[in-house]
């Protein structure tokens, strides 16, 4: 069972997060302050950490810094009410792996934790495979089984990202940040949906099993495990 340590001083937030993560099959430990949190992170070796930035006792970033100094590589998701881009950059620079601004959707939190736990290994292979899909990273060509898929560069980039994270929920915010390098929320809220619609149209041909799924209200999923 995957164990997660949550260091968060607000009891109500912690309660919701713990309940949600428990529903998804995680075992969650909770620590309400920085010093205690650091102790637990050192002693119990969790698989992932969720750390709030503002903590009594010891600041969240200091906790992460201390852990990284001990060469603990556990993935860390930083939670913060500070949404400014500079704060985000600082959070990531101090050793956080991902940064989520409060208030956040629980789906978003879970999706990001799962993404952190299953980080794609940077394969040296030139061909990427997921289910019936095959990407040639050198020739920039895509196939589904025998069928050649004609993709625009931006579609290729999106499909590559999804194939590296197949069977994981990818939220719109994650896609914007990772694929389009957006550091802000675009005014057109369905931006991702339009792009995804195009891609799905090409990937899932008529009569074929649907691979790209729209998870209502949360994001998208490339399902290859049936």
């Amino acid at each position, binding site marked *: 069972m995957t164990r997660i340590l949550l260091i968060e001083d607000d009891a109500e937030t912690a309660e919701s997060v713990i309940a949600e993560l428990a529903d998804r099959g995680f075992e969650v430990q909770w620590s309400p302050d920085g010093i205690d949190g650091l102790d637990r992170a050192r002693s119990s070796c969790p698989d992932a950490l969720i750390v709030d930035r503002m903590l009594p006792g010891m600041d969240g970033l200091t906790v992460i810094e201390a852990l990284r100094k001990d060469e603990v590589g556990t993935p860390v998701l930083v939670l913060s009410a500070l949404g400014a881009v*500079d704060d985000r950059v600082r959070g990531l620079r101090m050793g956080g792996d991902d940064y989520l601004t409060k208030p956040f959707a629980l789906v978003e939190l879970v999706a990001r934790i799962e993404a952190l736990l299953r980080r794609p290994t940077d394969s040296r292979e030139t061909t990427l495979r997921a289910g019936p899909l095959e990407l040639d990273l050198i020739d920039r060509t895509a196939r589904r089984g025998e069928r050649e898929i004609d993709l625009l560069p*931006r579609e290729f980039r999106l499909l590559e990202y999804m194939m590296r994270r197949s069977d994981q929920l990818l939220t719109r915010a994650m896609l914007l940040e990772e694929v389009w390098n957006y550091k802000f929320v675009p005014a057109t809220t369905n931006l991702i949906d*339009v792009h995804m619609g195009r891609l799905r149209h090409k990937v899932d041909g008529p009569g074929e099993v649907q691979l790209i799924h729209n998870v209502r209200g949360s994001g998208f999923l490339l399902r290859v495990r049936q």
Partner: protein
Amino acid sequence: MRQFHFIRSNTFLWALAVAAAFALFVVGLFAFIYWKIDDYLIVRSDRMITTQIDFLARLPSARRVNAITDHLEQDSRGVQYAGLFDAAGARLAGNIERVPQELELDGVVQGVRLDRITQSTDHDPVVRAGARRLEGGAILVMGRNVDETREISSVVGQALALGLLPAFCLCLLAGAGLSIRAQRRVEEVNQRVRRIVAGDLRERLPQDNVDDPFARLAGIVNGMLDEMETMINALTGVGNDIAHDLRTPLTRARLALERGRTHAATLEQLHEVVDKAVAGIDQSLAIVTALLRLAEIENNRRMAGFGDVALDEILREVCDVYEPIAEDKNVALGVAIDREVQVWGDRDLLFEAVANLVDNAVKFTPAGGMVRLELVSADKTALVRVSDTGPGINEQEREAVLRRFYRSDKMRHTPGVGLGLSLVAAIVKLHGFRLIICPAPGGRVEILVSTGATRDRAPAPQSRIARHARLDRT
């Protein structure tokens, strides 16, 4: 008590000190003059006495008595004294009673008291005299009244009284006057500042049309007050707008939840209600997030991410992102770049600005229309132009669209937070570029960027005037 306040004031004390120093100096000067003149007169009379003694001593003794008598008769002012005594000290001629005891008989002239034959009643005159024993044993005493120095001292004293006293009084008056004037101005400023503190933001400091430091200071403070008034007014307006815009989605969420609580019979219905509520809350959050971003950019804290940015790449990327959206709307989106352009800036922010402009253009262009994204480069500047075949922004609305939350009435039904253009404006300002909104028909917004020597440039200070202009109009 306020009238006497000035006595304790700094200006007055300084005037007093200057007056005192001036008086001391003048007194010193007069004393010096007096001392010098006195000295000169004494030296002169001493010389005369010595000459007379020498002259008389050389005369044969028979002619001395006559000579002395003549000498005294010629002295109409009665300032000359002379006496000839025999060896025993008995008077032979002259107007001196007896040989003064303190006088040495060596001819050296000194200050002395003389017993005169005709004593004038008023006072003992100051006398310089010398005595010498002549051949044959007779004693010659010659003297001279040097009372003139007293006259001089009285003249000097009068001059002092006539010159110094009025000058001193004038000094005090000027000091008091200046002090009262300064006091009055400070008091007036004080009262006006109190009114400003109490909330009257339109109050200004008195600014007479003279070019003195005080007026200049008042000018500076007034400039600051102008700026602050503008900002506070803008803030108040923004506060109202925020409250207004947040209320709409929150009201929707509230209504949905309220109805859902009483009417939802099945789980699906409940889900639907909750989704609606969450959507409402998400929109409120989006507004708050956008506002925070705007504040962050406007507060100039984001210079850290500056570097060399390829504008042409940004344009291509934005075009790439928006192509499918435009296509769905049946709007043609084209990009034209005449050559590569590098600017000094924050890549993410510039991307955001261009994306916002394109987003707007695509949103407001009706089906069948066209949106063009151009990069026109000149010598040291370049122009990012986003033009469309939509309705454009008319004259009256051009300033207003930069205001937060402004949405043209025609566009009320289109989704969006209404912060897009103000965000663009803030980003452009941060970079020291210029945002140009071209008149309708057809939408055209341009960003004038500078490409040469951008690294040393601070953000343009012209924004203040622009903001003034904007507020004057609202």
